[in-house]
């Protein structure tokens, strides 16, 4: 994979970083909240394994506001 140069990494690191922040924030919220819509462990898996869409799905569908 030598086609991936250093500059390419430099460009991609912010993207990876943002995805990581999203993932950490959602997992923090899943653990902290008393209840989610649906089992917590499923949401943790969804957030970890589905890139970008996972955290969005959790924040829109999985969160209980009341």
């Amino acid at each position, binding site marked *: *994979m030598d*086609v*991936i140069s250093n500059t*390419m990494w430099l*460009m*991609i690191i*912010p*993207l990876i970083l*943002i*995805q990581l*922040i*999203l993932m950490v*924030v*959602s997992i923090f*919220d899943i653990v902290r909240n008393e209840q989610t819509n649906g089992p917590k462990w499923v949401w943790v898996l969804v957030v970890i394994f589905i890139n*970008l869409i996972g*955290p*969005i799905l959790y*924040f*829109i569908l999985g*969160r209980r*506001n*009341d």
Partner: protein
Amino acid sequence: MSQWLILLQKELLENVRNFKWIWVPLVFIILAIQQPITMYYMPQILESVGGLPEGAVFDFPVPSAEEVLATSLTQYNSLGVLIIVLITMGVIAAERKSGVAAMILVKPVSYTSFVTSKWFSVLLLVWASYFIGYLGAWYYTGVLFEFVSFSIFMQSFLMYGVWLTFVLTFTVFLNTFLKSSGLIAFISLGSIIIMSLISSILSNALSWSPALLGGYVTEFIMFAQMPDGAVISMVVSIAVIGIMLLLSVLLFRKNELAE
């Protein structure tokens, strides 16, 4: 006015607590900046994925910076609009369902403040996220390709922002007389899709349609001049946004008093 500011503060605080102020900007940034990156590295990506026949030579035309910036903005056409509708779908409906709205409206809070403060809180969130995301795309396009002039960036930002505001206001408007957030999202997305389809098919007759702003903004970025119909389309959008906001307040008052 002070009452309105307090209501707005409450909305903003709520959006901080439910992490909207974190995830919406981040998602908007990702949506916009992944476009310049993939377009820049397309040849390398194809190479490393492989599957090309031995000795195949591909001459990729290098896209112009304007083209790259325009395609990053069109990312918001689908996923951006979807996210806006999804974060707005329950903004009033959920509070009416859970009874919070009734609790607030028992106090001497005007219906106008209640609706407009909610509308404005989502507006702030969307515009801030959209600005950061689009600015990121502009910066990445500049580093990887060429810098597009900042005035074109700002003008296209404002122009497309009108369309996003239109979508948002329409969803808030549906909130004032429908109670289920799922239904609101469905009707809102459905109407936007139908509107875009009809407008693009009859683009000559409907050149003022707000749904054409997405196309106009692409044209504007590419050729650096306002396409015909863009200005009138913006004026119509802003007028309709004003009317929808007014109707939202009226409908909300009527529905709440009826209960």
